[in-house]
């Protein structure tokens, strides 16, 4: 008779206790799979927003940018640099930046003007996908601008409304012009929502009398290229210009994302610790109820390792069943959360660490998500089982047979 068969029967000797133990483990697994996927989805979406909508993986600025950020502090030949970056396997887009004042009929506000080539930009960033209403920039609409949603609210403008932009050009002259609101962005980030005006790079150069140069180059890397490796390649191409990773540009957010993942593991451990105590209790009960029987089996010649293996196998059976149940129950929920997500309603667009929260919070589930939850469960259950299993293995048959 195999150990597995005896263990299987022992599991169902006290079927109610075994079912409770299996249900608790399955529930813990279900919870951790769904919770981790939701948090992962939230963090991925937050990181994705940072990288895909605004910052990119890397940014390159003129050497003097930190000391003298301004219209005339530029990378002299951005086209050559972009070509060198492309040569190094990276994707890049050029940005022109300036501060200014925007005014509508009703109000005015300080703004950040960002000039870009919509075709080149679309290769690196996904900002057009975040349009709340209207259309993105297009070459055939040189006076059309796209603005942040809170700026639109502050200025009291909507699609098609006009606004005046006022600033100082590179040659010292007054830069002012009338633009039409072509698009209003959905939630992106605190800064973009409140102050961003996106316009064509050609329009920007005309407005600010800036025939050449660029203030910022946003760089993306292939998914399989590590960030540090991408930065090294960009530095080689950039010469004296300063290359910074998004983690260097936004250290607080990078730390927050990292620590959120650590917190997720910590929450896992708390949930599993509770389950570990339950499993420990269940296995201890199963051992104490059978001390005499285990003593008899040892008297008949069953070795300590066989006793240990029997107890461990009994828990392993329950754990495997719990993993099957927990995973099967989690699968439809994970699918729903991935496809439909949770609509957070009024919380959508709320800024968290300067980043706007998406209105629909979707989960992100993959094999790693599942294996992490399962492996942690196995580790905790193994620890919880070994204590009573070792005690059982070390029972002296003569003492065990006297046990009442």
């Amino acid at each position, binding site marked *: *008779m195999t150990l597995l068969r*005896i263990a299987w*029967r*022992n599991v169902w*000797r006290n079927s109610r206790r075994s079912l409770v133990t299996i249900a608790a483990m399955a529930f813990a697994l279900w919870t951790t799979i769904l919770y981790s996927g939701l948090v992962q989805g939230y963090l991925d979406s937050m990181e994705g927003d940072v990288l895909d909508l605004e910052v990119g993986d890397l940014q390159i600025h003129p050497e003097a940018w930190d000391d003298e950020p301004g219209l005339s502090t530029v990378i002299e030949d951005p086209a050559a640099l972009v070509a060198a970056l492309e040569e190094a396997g990276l994707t890049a887009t050029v940005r022109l930046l300036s501060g200014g004042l925007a005014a509508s009929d009703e109000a005015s506000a300080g703004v950040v003007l960002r000039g870009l080539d919509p075709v080149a930009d679309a290769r690196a960033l996904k900002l057009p996908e975040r349009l709340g209403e209207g259309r993105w920039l297009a070459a055939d609409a040189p006076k059309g601008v796209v603005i942040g949603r809170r700026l639109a609210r502050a200025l009291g403008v909507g699609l098609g409304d006009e606004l005046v932009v006022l600033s100082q050009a590179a040659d010292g002259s007054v830069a002012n012009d009338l633009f039409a609101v072509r698009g209003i962005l959905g939630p992106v980030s605190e800064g973009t929502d409140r102050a961003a005006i996106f316009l064509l790079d050609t329009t920007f150069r005309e407005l600010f009398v800036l025939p050449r140069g660029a203030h910022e180059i946003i760089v993306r890397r292939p998914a399989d290229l590590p960030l540090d490796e991408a930065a090294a390649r960009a530095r080689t191409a950039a010469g004296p210009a300063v290359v910074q990773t998004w983690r260097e540009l936004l250290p607080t957010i990078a730390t927050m994302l990292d620590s959120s993942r650590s917190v997720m593991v910590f929450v896992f451990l708390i949930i599993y610790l509770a389950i570990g105590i339950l499993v420990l209790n269940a296995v201890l009960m199963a051992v104490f109820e059978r001390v*005499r*029987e285990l003593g*008899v*089996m*040892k*008297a*008949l*010649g*069953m*070795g*300590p390792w*066989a006793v240990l293996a029997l107890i461990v196998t009994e828990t392993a059976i329950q754990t495997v069943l719990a993993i099957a149940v927990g995973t099967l129950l989690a699968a439809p929920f994970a699918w729903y959360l991935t496809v439909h997500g949770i609509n957070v309603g009024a919380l959508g667009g709320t800024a968290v660490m300067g980043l706007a929260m998406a209105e629909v919070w979707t989960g992100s589930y993959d094999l790693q998500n599942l294996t992490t939850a399962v492996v942690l469960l196995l580790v905790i259950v193994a620890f919880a089982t070994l204590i009573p299993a070792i005690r059982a293995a070390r029972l*002296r*048959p*003569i003492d065990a*047979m006297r046990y009442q």
Partner: protein
Amino acid sequence: MTTSPPVLSFEGVTKVFHQGDVEVRALRGLDLVVHPGELTAIVGPSGSGKSTALHLAGALDVPTTGTVRVDGVDLATLTARERAALRRDRIGFVFQSYNLVPVMSAHENAASVLALQGVPEAEQRTRVASLLEELGIGDLADRRPDQLSGGQQQRVAIARAVAARPAVVLGDEPTANVDSATAERLLDLIRSLNERHGTTFLLSTHDERVMKRVRRVVTLVDGKVASDETVGG
């Protein structure tokens, strides 16, 4: 008297237990030899050392002083794991309260020692099936212990004890929990196994019926052999 080497021997064996500050001397220089094929009862009043002697014979415990040999092997020289292997291969046990494993059928219980020895399942089936037939419970092979009477359970326990053909079968009050008729049938079986297969039995008992059916009665008093008689059986 047989000239075969003994399957079991006690030489000047003492066993002292400590219960708190109290020292209990269960055996006080026990000398006893059991040869192959013997059917022996150890009798004596409560506290005389019967159970302790049986535990030592079963390699479940070790003596404080003196030497216990099972099939020529000095127990004091064995580790716990080696003693477990000795019990598995050379000793059979029949307990007062049967002590069958409740999740196993009669057949599986009877075959459990063979399984521990690694005997192939086909051979286990053959050996145990014929043994259960011989003990009159062949038709109950698939029943679990809770579906068997006390006498039937004790027969399964006897089958488990003898299935692996041990050097000696130790019985701790094997008839204590069954009625008279069942006890008589069990003793018939034990005698039959002893006569037909030469199985060596050492039975600890208070039961007069057992004393009448064995061939040798060893009486212990205060942890020593007070008398050792060959009886008719």
